[in-house]
């Protein structure tokens, strides 16, 4: 029983990171039908940018700021202007394939310009343990969980409580009508790309101390976020959050109770079951069929 609680907390901590990445993923899908197969690589890259800045002699806090700024510039603005804008009008699939190629490119660039070896990455959360209700819990897990929850709360507040959030939702749900009532749709789409870039940079900051900075980190992360987004509901932000937490917990529990060999299989079976019986995801709305 005590073991189960530890696993749950660890699972929620990784799940919260998956949730952040999955939310970014669904935002891109909602506003601009972009299935970003490079999302995992987007999480891997900011850590390397921060490491590079630190290598140049900057302190950690400055490296974080510069890393986030670079990621907004490259993974937000650059990604939208250079890849999504020219390709979007040709449909979903060519763009999805282009993001696959982008994933290869980013991975190889990290390997070539940094190193094929895993590098340690400092944590923004102090190490050590805390005792809660007589249980010893790693401060790392608690910190990650708290920061991720704060990020998600901030985002949902932005989307549901502010004028900009409402404009973004309008732009996502019906761009034509949104444009008519005066919503700057283009700017809203750009904003979602910037939010996604910020979320992946945050996820990078939280997960890299645990996984170490390695060029291949994106493969696992991207797939986990992908599954989380589908399981939760591809077209709902809160679905992606629920999906992320669920996948994190299921992943950790199945590693302990099913088998370490088939650990990765359990979320996938969950994915297939969800798609077969509730294709819109746990919290998603069904998408209409067009003739």
């Amino acid at each position, binding site marked *: 029983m005590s073991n189960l609680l530890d696993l749950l907390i660890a699972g929620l901590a990784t799940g919260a990171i998956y949730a952040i990445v999955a939310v970014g993923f669904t935002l891109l899908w909602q506003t601009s039908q972009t299935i970003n197969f490079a999302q995992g690589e987007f999480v891997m890259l900011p850590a390397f940018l921060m490491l590079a800045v630190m290598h140049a002699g900057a302190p950690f806090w400055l490296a974080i700021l510069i890393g986030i700024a670079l990621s907004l510039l490259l993974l937000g603005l650059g990604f939208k202007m250079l890849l999504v804008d020219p390709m979007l009008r040709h449909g979903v699939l060519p763009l999805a394939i282009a993001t696959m190629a982008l994933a290869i490119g980013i991975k*190889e660039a990290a390997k070539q310009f940094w190193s094929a070896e895993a590098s340690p990455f400092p944590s923004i959360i102090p190490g050590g343990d805390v005792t809660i209700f007589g249980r010893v819990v790693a401060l790392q897990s608690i910190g990650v969980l708290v920061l991720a929850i704060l990020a998600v709360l901030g985002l949902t507040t932005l989307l549901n409580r502010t004028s900009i959030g409402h404009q973004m939702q309008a732009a996502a749900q019906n761009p034509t009508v949104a444009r008519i009532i005066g919503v700057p749709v283009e700017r809203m789409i750009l904003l979602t790309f910037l939010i996604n870039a910020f979320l992946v940079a945050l996820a990078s900051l939280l997960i890299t101390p645990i996984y170490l900075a390695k060029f291949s980190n994106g493969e696992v992360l991207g797939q986990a976020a992908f599954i989380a987004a589908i399981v939760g509901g591809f077209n709902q932000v809160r679905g992606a959050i629920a999906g992320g937490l669920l996948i994190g917990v299921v992943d950790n529990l199945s590693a302990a109770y099913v088998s370490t060999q088939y650990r990765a299989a359990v979320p996938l079976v969950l994915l297939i079951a969800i798609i077969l019986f509730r294709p819109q995801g746990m919290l998603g709305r069904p998408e209409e069929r067009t003739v």
Partner: protein
Amino acid sequence: MTAAKTLKIGFGIVVIAALIIVPMNFNRYGLFILSQWAVMTIAAMGLNLTLGYAGQVSLAQGAFVGIGAYTAAIMTSSGLPLIGALGVAIVLCFAIGWILGYPALRVQHHYLAFVTLAFSTLAFLVFRNEDWLTKGIYGISNIPRPEIFGYPTRRPLPFYYVCLGSLGIVSLAVWWLIRSPWGRAFIALRENPVRALSLGIDTRRYTLMAFAIGSALGGVAGTLYAPLTQYVDPVPFHLSLSLDLLMMVIVGGSGFFFGPFLGAMIAVLLPEWLRFTQGYYLMLYAIAVILLLIYSPTGILGILDRYISERRTKAASALRAVAKAKLETAP
């Protein structure tokens, strides 16, 4: 016969002759790469049938290549002939593809991609973990190459001809298939499933069929892959192979018969040509693919198609202009 058709057939004969004659003095590595091109083209043709003609996105083609390769490796290592393994692989992949197609009936486009993605990873886990069958991460080595009509193909050149010959047979079969009523039903399925259904096409059966046949061709590619590398382990059949195959189909031009040939050429040969750039070659490959897709989202053959249709429109409007001028000058 029109001049254009003669030109096309002539060009085809030249290419086939070149594929037979030119590699004769290639070294072992060159032949290996060319054989790999032939094998990947077969797998990509299967995916092109599923994706390009029937419009169903599959991210599991690499898993079917893996199933075929393991079938061939396990059967031929225990002394059974490759042709028997080929039969088993085709039946197995066809059946699994058929079952995997069922979700396609319930959900639409991108959800299907996710189911096949999950299947791809599950298949990889089975290859890696079921030691009793697949020898796990150590893999199966010393896979024998077949004898064709009593003629051994152990050396690289004869085996290259086995791959090329198989590619030829598969090409003819696919060529026939897409011109048959089935192929037309596949295209109807891609263009407008609801309309196809209301025209009396059994869309359920054709969707499953498109999946199953595409997957079976993946299995065919796998049965050639095993004796080509003579060593099979789980690594090459990771999800990335499925993504690579999808990229080949899109880059070559999905829905074009010759798309997979060009796509596989770019995916297999371009990284080799770029090898002189050392560590940068995959990066340059990725950039090349992105630039190509930005320039022409319908792939290489899309460029050609656009050029030809532009020329036709120009020719047609020129004819119209002449006709109009005649009408005006006539009293």
